[in-house]
């Protein structure tokens, strides 16, 4: 199976980084989350309901829709905040990339650890600019809003091609496909990673992995 990879590029002002990343990550996760599964007798299950919430951005003329799950929102905000801090601290020209990877776990026999097989990767490349005055900021506010709209449309177009999705798992396999740690929604297994690009354009050492499910070896 080939992993599907999509790249979204965006230029934003420093204070817009959080909201822009949240908007795109939440839009993707909205499509990649289902209600909680409740397995009944063997072979049947019921699915809970996913609520949605409109979120207005403060620094961008944009509103996005996210899944109504405060837990999930906290996880995403934490990852975005770390990415933003890394961008600020790197001393680079403000270029970086945050990636949202959806994967499946494949059980391996002892002594090998479970394998994580990505099936979809979304990479958001960010270029942070500094603006001189309020007028430029106002224009940037509107332009970034429009750009984000275009990116949302891109996301929607890709997702609605209905390409590969993992099969609905049995009860014993559900943790290999979905993140079942949240109490109200159930996204596909995912991880968020980021890279900061230095002024030479090469990726630097600060890559941090955040694993949702415990996949430590042995």
């Amino acid at each position, binding site marked *: 199976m080939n992993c599907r990879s999509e790249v979204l590029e965006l230029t934003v002002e420093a204070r817009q980084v959080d909201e822009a990343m949240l908007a795109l990550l939440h*839009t993707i996760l*909205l*499509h990649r989350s*289902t*209600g*909680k599964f*409740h397995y*009944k007798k063997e*072979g*049947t*299950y*019921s*699915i*809970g*309901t*996913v*609520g*949605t*919430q*409109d*979120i*207005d951005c403060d620094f961008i*003329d944009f*509103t*996005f*829709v996210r*899944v*109504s*799950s405060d837990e999930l929102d906290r996880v995403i905000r934490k990852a975005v905040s770390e990415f933003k801090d890394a961008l600020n601290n790197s001393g680079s020209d403000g270029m970086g990339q945050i990636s949202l990877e959806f994967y499946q776990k494949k059980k391996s026999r002892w002594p090998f650890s479970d394998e994580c097989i990505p099936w979809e990767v979304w990479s958001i490349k960010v270029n942070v600019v500094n603006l001189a005055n309020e007028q430029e900021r106002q224009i940037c506010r509107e332009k970034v809003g429009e750009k*984000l*709209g275009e990116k*949302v*449309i891109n*996301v*929607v177009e890709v*997702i*609605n091609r*209905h390409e590969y999705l993992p*099969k*609905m*798992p*049995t*009860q014993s396999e559900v943790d290999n496909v979905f993140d079942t740690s949240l*109490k*109200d*929604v159930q996204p596909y297994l995912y991880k968020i990673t980021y890279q900061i690009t230095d002024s030479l354009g090469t990726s630097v050492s600060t890559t941090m992995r955040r694993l949702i499910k415990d996949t430590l070896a042995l």
Partner: protein
Amino acid sequence: MDSDLSPQDKKDLDKFIKFFALKTVQVIVQARLGEKICTRSSSSPTGSDWFNLAIKDIPEVTHEAKKALAGQLPGIGRSMCVEISLKTSELANVCVCLSCRCDKDIKVSYTVYNRLSLLLKSLLAITRVTPAYKLSRKQGHDYVILYRFVVLGFQTVRVGVVGTPVGTVTLSCAYRTNLAFMSNRQFERTAPIMGIIVDHFLDAPYGSQPPANMGQPCNYRPPGEEDGGAFPGVEDSQEVCTTSFSTSPLLSGDDEGLSHSGEGRSDGRRDEGEEEFGAFVNKPSTQITTASLDLPFAAFAPRGLDLEDKDPMVQPPDSPPCPSPLQASLHSQGSEESGQQDDFVMVDFRPAFSKDDLLPMDLGTFYREFQNPPQLASLSLHISSQSMADDLDSLPEKLAVYEKNIDEFDAFVDMLQ
């Protein structure tokens, strides 16, 4: 196409499409209410949340949508369209339609349902991205956003695609499947495919009263609304949605979580409201002027009276309480219909003094455009008599004021001299 589907699958598919259409219109209208929407996730399925999405139902919207559908589903060549407008111009149209492309291998109850759910999520995201969303958030005193449902008969054909080094040239054709009489004004508006939906908001002289079929305002405010629990429950009982699924795609549909709670299909009775009409369908009794004959699709004739008799889009059973703006634009004497015209003869329209045989259309176009001008408001008997009566009543008062200020007027006249 349907022959390969089992009866259960066909039944499921019809139900999915019906509720998909109803939920789609809810999402679109709610996105234009001007408020942020918030619904809660629930880990336990309730059976009323179709497509596993918490989308509340505004009863009025469901009612209007069902009225527009008139007991039928969006199907091949029959699209349901949601028009969002700002009273004078259309902002967007979203159509729910079924194309001819079939995917026979697809499993109805499993894959189709999940993909429809994904589509609804995409709709939730997209409705916040269009410029109309910002306008709708600011609506209030100065303007309101309106919505209306229309059911259209058109199909699209993708003619072909040609790749070039710089891009792809795509040619597609959207054509109406239900030809009905259209006024001259409709052809003045050159718009993309969505422009085939005629602009209903004509410049008809209605005075302060907007046309009856202008649409419903997107400002639904249920009583006792609170954050997160925006809308009251559905008036009518709703069919319970599928809540149980099988992990094995090979197993047949599981009815464990499925039950019907008594909502029958519409009995086909139609209301007398304007929405039962197709977007550009007029009553067949409307006069067809020879001016329209040179225009595309203008050679409309009642081909088979049987077809028209049965087609609710052309032959609505009841006459509407108010005249449609379409009719008003066709008759300079107002909205009174003057007689039936069962058949007409194609006449080659050659305007007098048109000397250029190659381009007779210029003068001809001029003739056609000005043959049926709209009724002037001041010439309307009702309005003009009313204003005259008002003027007469206010005359003594005005004279009194002028006499009181007579010195000022004299001074003004002296100044001019």
